C-alpha cells in the first residue's frame, strides 16, 4: 500500500543509492543540497497556496470573489503575478545606498529560510535534527529585522525609515513574549529538539495536556508571532494608510516580490513552530486518557497521514492570521508597545512560572 510508505523509507533509499555511487563525504554534500532544494520547493508551493488563500479569504470577507480569471478559480493568478514581478525593472532611488539597498531583500529572505533547517516535517524527516532546534529558530528569527532595517535605512526615504524603525521596535519587543511562550512549551516537553517536542506529544498535544498555561502560551505565541511577521493588526512597518508601504516603499519588481515572499515564508514558519510546540506538528490528534474508546479513537486518527496533519495545522493557524488581518484595524505604535510590555510580557512571565509549578507537581497530563 502506498500510504504505508513512510518518508523515512524514501530518505533511507536515497541515502543508500547515493552511497553506492559516491564517497560518504559527497553523499553528505549532495544530501544537504537535495534537502535544501526540497524544503525550498515545498515552501514555495506553500507560499503560492497561501497567497491564493489570502486573496480568497480576503475576498470572502469583503463580499467579492478574489482571483477568478486566470485559470480555473483563478489558481494561476499568483503565477501570473510572479511573472509580472520578474519582468519589472528593479531600480533603486537616486541617492540610495545601492549596495545595502540590493542586499536587504536577499538578507531578509536568507534569514527566514535558515529557520527552516531544524523543522521536523514528518516522522524522521528533519533536515538538521539537532538538540537545540528551537533555540536555533528563535536566534535566527531575531535576525529578520536586520534586512528590514537595512531596507528602510538605505532607501533614502523618510517613509521607509519610519517603517523600518517601527519594525525594529516591534520585532525586538515581541521576540520576548514569543520567546517566553516557546520556553513554556519547551519546559513542558523537556527538550529543545523539534523532533523531541513532537514525540513528547504522542499521547496528546500540549495544548490539551499542558492545562491553562499551554493555552495561554499558545495564544500569546500566535499574537506575538503575528506581530513578528509584521502582519495586520501589527503591520505598522508597512502601514499602508500612514506610510504608503513602509520599509519597502522604494522597492520594485522582484526585490519587492522577495519582501512579499518573505512575509509569507515567515508566516509559514511561525505557524509551523506554533503547531510543533502546541499542536503536535505532524503528530495525529490523540487524547491523553486511558479508556478503550479513546484507544480506538487514537488508532483511527493514526490512519490520517502525517503530512495532512502537518499542513492542516499549519494552514489552520495561517487562516487565523489572515482572519486577523482582514477584520482588525491597526494599532498605533505606542499601543503596540504598551500591549507587549504591559500585558503580554508580564502575562508570559507569570504563565511560565505557573507552567513550571504545574510541571514540578506533575499536574500536566
Amino acid at each position, binding site marked *: 500500500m502506498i500510504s504505508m510508505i513512510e518518508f523515512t523509507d524514501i530518505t533511507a533509499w536515497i541515502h543508500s543509492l547515493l552511497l553506492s555511487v559516491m564517497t560518504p563525504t559527497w553523499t553528505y554534500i549532495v544530501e544537504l543540497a537535495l534537502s535544501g532544494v526540497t524544503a525550498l520547493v515545498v515552501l514555495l508551493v506553500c507560499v503560492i497556496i497561501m497567497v491564493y488563500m489570502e486573496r480568497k479569504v480576503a475576498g470572502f470577507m469583503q463580499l*467579492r470573489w478574489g482571483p477568478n480569471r486566470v485559470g480555473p478559480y483563478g489558481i494561476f493568478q499568483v503565477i501570473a503575478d510572479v511573472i509580472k514581478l520578474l519582468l519589472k525593472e528593479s531600480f533603486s532611488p537616486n541617492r540610495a545606498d545601492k549596495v545595502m539597498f540590493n542586499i536587504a531583500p536577499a538578507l531578509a529572505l536568507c534569514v527566514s529560510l535558515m529557520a527552516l533547517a531544524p523543522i521536523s516535517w514528518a516522522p524522521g524527516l528533519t533536515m538538521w535534527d539537532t538538540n537545540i532546534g528551537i533555540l536555533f529558530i528563535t536566534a535566527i528569527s531575531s535576525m529578520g529585522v536586520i534586512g528590514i532595517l537595512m531596507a528602510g535605512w538605505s532607501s533614502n526615504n523618510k*517613509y521607509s525609515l*519610519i517603517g523600518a524603525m517601527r519594525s525594529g521596535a516591534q520585532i525586538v519587543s515581541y521576540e520576548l513574549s514569543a520567546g517566553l511562550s516557546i520556553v513554556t512549551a519547551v519546559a513542558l516537553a523537556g527538550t529543545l529538539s523539534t523532533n523531541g517536542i513532537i514525540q513528547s506529544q504522542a499521547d496528546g498535544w500540549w495544548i490539551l495536556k499542558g492545562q491553562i498555561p499551554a493555552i495561554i502560551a499558545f495564544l500569546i505565541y500566535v499574537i506575538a508571532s503575528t506581530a513578528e511577521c509584521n502582519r495586520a493588526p501589527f503591520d*505598522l512597518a508597512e502601514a499602508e494608510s*500612514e506610510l504608503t508601504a513602509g520599509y519597502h516603499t522604494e522597492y520594485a519588481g522582484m526585490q519587492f516580490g522577495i519582501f512579499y515572499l518573505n512575509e509569507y515564508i515567515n508566516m509559514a514558519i511561525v505557524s509551523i513552530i506554533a503547531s510543533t510546540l502546541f499542536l503536535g506538528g505532524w503528530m495525529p490528534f490523540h487524547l491523553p486518557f486511558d479508556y478503550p474508546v479513546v484507544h480506538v479513537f487514537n488508532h483511527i486518527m493514526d490512519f490520517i497521514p502525517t503530512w495532512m496533519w502537518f499542513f492542516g495545522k499549519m494552514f489552520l493557524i495561517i487562516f487565523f492570521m489572515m482572519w486577523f488581518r*482582514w477584520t482588525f*484595524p*491597526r*494599532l498605533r505604535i505606542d499601543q503596540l508597545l504598551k500591549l507587549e510590555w504591559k500585558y503580554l510580557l508580564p502575562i508570559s512571565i507569570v504563565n511560565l512560572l505557573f507552567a513550571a509549578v504545574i510541571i514540578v507537581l506533575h499536574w500536566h497530563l
Partner: protein
Amino acid sequence: MENQPTTPSPTELRTEEFVVNIGPQHPATHGVLRIEATLDGETVKDILPHLGYIHRGIEKMTESMPYKQSIYLTSRMDYLSAHINNHACSLAIENALGIEVSARAKAIRIIMDELQRLTSHELWWGSCAMDIGAVTPFFLGFRDRERILEIFEANTGNRLTMNYIIPGGVMRDVLPSFVTDVKELLKKIKGYRHEYDQLITGNFIFQHRTQGVGYLSKEQAISLACSGPVARASGVSCDVRKHYPYDGYEKLDFNEVIDYGCDNWARYLVHMEEMNQSIHIIEQLLDNFPTGEYRTKIKGIIKLPEGEYYQRVETARGELGVYIVADGSNKPYRMKFRTPSFSNLGAVKPTTVGLKIADLMANMSTIDLVVPDIDR
C-alpha cells in the same frame, strides 16, 4: 538663554525634527491634499496643509455662466454631497426670484439630500476604518452605498454628479416605483447596520484608536468655524436643518445629533447616528409622498434682480453657504461658496499636534475632508 543651541558632544545622542510631506499623492489624504508634517520621531510637532492642487476656479467660472449652468459646477465641489450642493444653489436662486416649489419637488429634494448624506457617511465609514487600518469595512460601506447609487442612477441618470435639483424643482420626475424602491432600500440598509457595529464600532482596537484621540474643544470648534459632524461632536449645535430649515425640514421629526466627547470617537458616533436620523427623515416623507408637479415652470433665462443673496444648507460635512451678488444680468457678478471642508480642515492641526502619525490619519478621516471641496 535656554533656547541656545548646544553643540552635542560626539558621544551624545543627537535628535532632530524632520519634515514629511503627506500627499499630494498619499493613500490617507483621499485626494490631492498635501500636509507638511513636522515630526519628532513618531510624534507630530506641526502641521501645515497646502491647498490648491485641485483648484479649478469654480467660483470664477460661475461669473461667465448663466445661473442654470453654474449649478452644474457645484456638483463638482463636494462630489459626495452633489445633490445637496445643487440644492443650495437652487434655493439661493429661488429665494432671489421668489419662486415657491411644489410639495412633491420638496419631498423629492429632501429624500435625495438624505440619501446623499447616507451615501456620503457610508463611504466615510469605510474610508475612516481604512485609515485606521481595517480594509474590510471599505467594501461593506461601498456595498450599501452602491444600492443608493442605483436609485440615483435610475431616477436621475447619474451616479456621482447628478445635476438633478434645479431652480424650480427637480430635473425630471422620479420613477413610479421610487417610493417602493427606497422603502426596500432602507429595509436593506437597516438590516446591514448591525454589521457596522459588529465589525468596527464594537472593535476594541478601533475604540482605543479613537477614544480620547483628536480632542477639539467647543471653543476651538467655534473659533475655527467648524460645522457639521465635526462641530456637533464638540457639542456645538449647528445643524442648518434645525436652525435655518429649508424646503420643509421644519415639518419633519428628527434630532440634531450632538455629542460632547470632542474626540474621534464622538465624531464617529455622530456620523453613525446621523445615518439613523437620515433614514428616519426619509421614512417620514415616504409614508405620505405628495403628488403633483415636480417642477414649477420658470423662465428659460434666469435673471436675478440686483442684490445680494445668501443661502445655507447642511451637507454631509457641514454648512455650505452660497453667496450670490447679482447685477441684474443672467450671470452672477460674484458667486462665493462657503464650503464645510475648508473650515473643517483647520481642525486638523489643533487635534493632531502632539499625537502620533497614525493619529493624524485617524483625525483627518473623522474630520471627513473632501479635497475638491476644500479647493473648489
